[in-house]
């Protein structure tokens, strides 16, 4: 099923081919025709994505990365490949295989940090992209997201819309990106609704939906009416829990729009541009402009956002969300990213927001 798109003759060269061409440059004047001929037979750039243990089909994080890969295949003509990791012991062999066969190796997830650093050091001429973490290896582009900023907006929605003054977070494994989500969410809730209680429970798995369902049901039973699963495939169970409870029980999705799991249950989405990152880095490699190092994407860069695909969040709530969004982009609010920062965080009530953003979003000017 993997579409192998033929590169057009004008298609950009892979990094390896660029090097070959560069080495051949002095000869080009003499054997110019030969070099052009080689370029014409150019194989497409191979981008291989290695999933974490949740794997494809988590309808979440890994699938989102795959979406970016598919878009790069359609628009840039890369050859997309995916290797799924059955367990943590498979990370290094999978990444090694990917580095052997491809031009860009994408490690999807914080859990692959150590493995990708090790493999990247063994293949110093290859390009790597690590999602959600930063690696010490110079040839790894580490893209992290300020999930807490998007989660903060999700928390604003939850805090304003809960009718029971109780909301829950179901985390997969307590790793930094998940913690950023949970902490940002809590900060958002308490900013608009100091009375509300935020329950945080970790499943210790990204791939056990039955477990996610029970954790969510327990939170609903404890009075929560909105659940925020940040748990890969484990979070699929949250939708089943909301369906079972019926009207008045909601799920806010993290990472990706999960309408297909329950369009009537999904209140909003704290979206994360994993697909954009995979696409952007693929483009860099195709253009021979790959740069390693650290990149952090938040609300200001469009790396995270709050979506309202079902239209369940009313206008007036979205207006407040937009004001918070602008305040975060402008730096008026710094969203906490870990437990310590959360403890030190003083909530900013909606009334205390800068008044400038009376007409939100439309006329938003970049911060000076």
């Amino acid at each position, binding site marked *: 099923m993997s579409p192998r798109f033929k590169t057009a003759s004008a298609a950009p060269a892979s990094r390896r081919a660029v090097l070959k061409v560069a080495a051949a440059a002095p000869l080009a004047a003499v054997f110019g025709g030969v070099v052009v001929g080689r370029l014409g037979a150019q194989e497409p750039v191979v981008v291989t994505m290695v999933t974490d243990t949740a794997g494809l089909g*988590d309808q979440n994080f890994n699938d989102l990365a795959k979406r970016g890969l598919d878009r790069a295949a359609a628009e840039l003509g890369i050859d997309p490949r995916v290797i799924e990791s059955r367990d943590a012991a498979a990370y290094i062999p999978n990444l090694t295989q990917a580095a052997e066969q491809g031009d860009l190796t994408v490690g999807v997830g914080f859990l692959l940090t150590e493995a990708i650093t090790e493999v990247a050091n063994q293949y110093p001429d290859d390009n790597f992209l690590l999602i959600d973490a930063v690696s010490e290896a110079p040839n790894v582009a580490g893209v992290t997201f300020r999930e807490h900023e998007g989660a903060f907006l999700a928390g604003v929605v939850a805090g304003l819309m809960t009718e029971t003054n109780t909301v829950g977070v179901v985390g997969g494994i307590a790793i930094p990106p998940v913690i950023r989500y949970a902490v940002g969410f809590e900060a958002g809730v308490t900013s608009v609704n100091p009375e509300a209680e935020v*329950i945080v429970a970790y499943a210790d798995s990204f791939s056990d939906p*039955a477990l996610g369902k029970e954790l969510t049901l327990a939170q609903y039973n404890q009075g929560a009416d909105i659940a925020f699963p940040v748990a890969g*495939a484990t979070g699929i169970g949250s939708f*089943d829990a909301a369906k079972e409870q019926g009207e008045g029980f909601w799920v806010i999705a993290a990472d990706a729009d999960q309408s297909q799991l329950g369009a009537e249950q999904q209140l909003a989405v704290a979206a994360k541009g994993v697909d954009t990152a995979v696409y952007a880095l693929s483009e860099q490699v195709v253009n021979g402009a790959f740069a390693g190092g650290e990149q952090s994407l938040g609300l200001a860069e469009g790396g995270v956002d709050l979506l309202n695909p079902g239209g369940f969040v009313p206008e007036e709530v979205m207006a407040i969300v937009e004001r918070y969004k602008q305040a975060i982009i402008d730096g008026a609010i710094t969203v906490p990213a870990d437990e310590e920062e959360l403890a030190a965080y003083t909530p900013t009530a909606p009334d205390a927001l800068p008044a400038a953003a009376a007409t939100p979003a439309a006329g938003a000017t970049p911060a000076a």
Partner: protein
Amino acid sequence: MDAIVGFFSVALLTATLRSAAPLVFAAMGGLLSERSGVTNIALEGLMLLGAFAAAAGAWFTGNALLGLLVGVLAGMLGAVVFGLWAIGLRADQIVAGTAINLLGLGLTAFLVQRIWNQAGGSPSVARLPSFEVGGSTLNVLVPLAFLAVPVVHWVLFKTTGGLRLMAAGESPRAAESVGIDVPRYRYAAVLASGLLAGLGGAYLSIGDLSQFTTNMTAGRGFIALAAVIFGNWTPLGTLGAALLFGFAQALRFQVQALNWPIPQDLLIALPYLVTLLAVTGLVRNSQPPAGLGKHATSD
């Protein structure tokens, strides 16, 4: 006082039953197989086959009951393969069981890709009916799981076939010497374990949830096998072990939802800690069937 009464709510009870039910199904299957002398670590793979086939069946037919039937048949089909290796071809039972587990994981992931053209899971499918108990929901397979326990007990201890099955597990040579067809009883037991493990898998994909996801059994087959051992290879003991584990899980969910300032890691480990304590405290003279893992002298 109110807090304590509120704590031990109907919700805690139903969460216990929901967590224990798939374990009970698989454990009853494991029990039958082990009592016939076949070590069955294939439960995990058989459950996964059942979970997948049930979702696929429900998806193709649009009917959850037909899905359940397909799931059970898939579990039995996996058990036939396991039986051919472990009984017919006299392979090492642990190796054959491991092969089934790998087959279950790989084959289901492959078929998901082939059928739905997407990786990792099925779309949403029809779900088995459920009923309400005190504001909590249980699906129809929950009572069926607990009904399986007295049935297995009766078959094992009150029928001639059951006694012969246990004889095959205690001493295959002695059983053969009195004319019991040991492989036949073992095939029957392994087939039954496939049926029950298939039910346990279907419980997850179309009973509790409404779709299949890769590796959704998440080790429940192994926990079921542990329940058999912890239950000292008796149906009631195994039921107790599965209920204890289910209760510890439910307790964990409940305490996590109460947001008490207890480290999450400790709560996550709670079911395993409780099981460990119970095993060290209660299992003094656990006695496996003497002929477990031994092949019959002839086929």
